[in-house]
């Protein structure tokens, strides 16, 4: 796996708190949207597709 990319100097070590806070909030909101879409959306086809995921994860279903 080429997960490590150590070519470009990154900003993380120098990122300010507000930058990191922004990234954390942004990532959390995006993550919550993904979980909401697959786990809670009322669109029938999405419900049917992710049905077993929802039951297994103990999300409210039906």
């Amino acid at each position: 796996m080429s997960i490590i990319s150590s070519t470009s100097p990154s900003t993380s070590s120098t990122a300010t708190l507000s930058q990191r806070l922004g990234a954390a909030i942004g990532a959390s909101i995006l993550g919550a949207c993904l979980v909401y879409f697959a786990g809670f959306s009322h669109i029938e086809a999405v419900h049917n597709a992710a049905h077993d995921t929802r039951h297994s994860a103990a999300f409210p279903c039906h």
Partner: protein
Amino acid sequence: MIKRIAQTAGFSGLLAALLLTLLQSFWVAPLIMQAETFEKAPAATQVAHEHAAGTAAHTHDAEAWEPEDGWQRVLSTTGGNLVVAVGFALMLAGLYTLRAPTRTAQGLLWGLAGYATFVLAPTLGLPPELPGTAAADLAQRQIWWIGTAASTAAGIALLVFGGNWLLKALGAAILVVPHVIGAPQPEVHSMLAPEALEAQFKIASQLTNVAFWLALGLISAWLFRRNRDDRYIA
């Protein structure tokens, strides 16, 4: 920083989702399918009714697309797992930018916190359900679920990171609020599947979710630390 979050979330979500799918396929899904045989049996005897041509019919479950049992169903469940896992991993990776794990093993603690937030606390009020179980209004349950997860997350954060006892006490209070309010319950409890199957499903669901969250926490902490932004490289 954003690249680091994306890489961590993408890969750890993918790996944890594959583990989840594997556990589900062999343990959880068979129980769901078994319960569906009870659910679908009486449905077949329902009186058929017709809609006048041209009028908008109310939605029937059967009318929307649904994956066929077999590879279609496994594939779409895998897709669902993947979206959910990457979503949870994004939240974890986002939090790591604020509180980076100092050791990979700390990921286990993050995983446990995730399990407590998104599985344990909500299932205290709304236990894992097999298809065919009577339950309160879906929207109300979803609201309670989301509220419980949010308050559990805030409560745990205050308990763990709170600087003084006052904040910790506040965290503990926030933790119990949703359970004092209580989850929406159906007027009559009933289920089509036998109780033994339901009990087995609850255990299967809890253990699968523990495994998923521990794996997600561990893998994400490991990857996040591996992708350490060249801090020690000139």
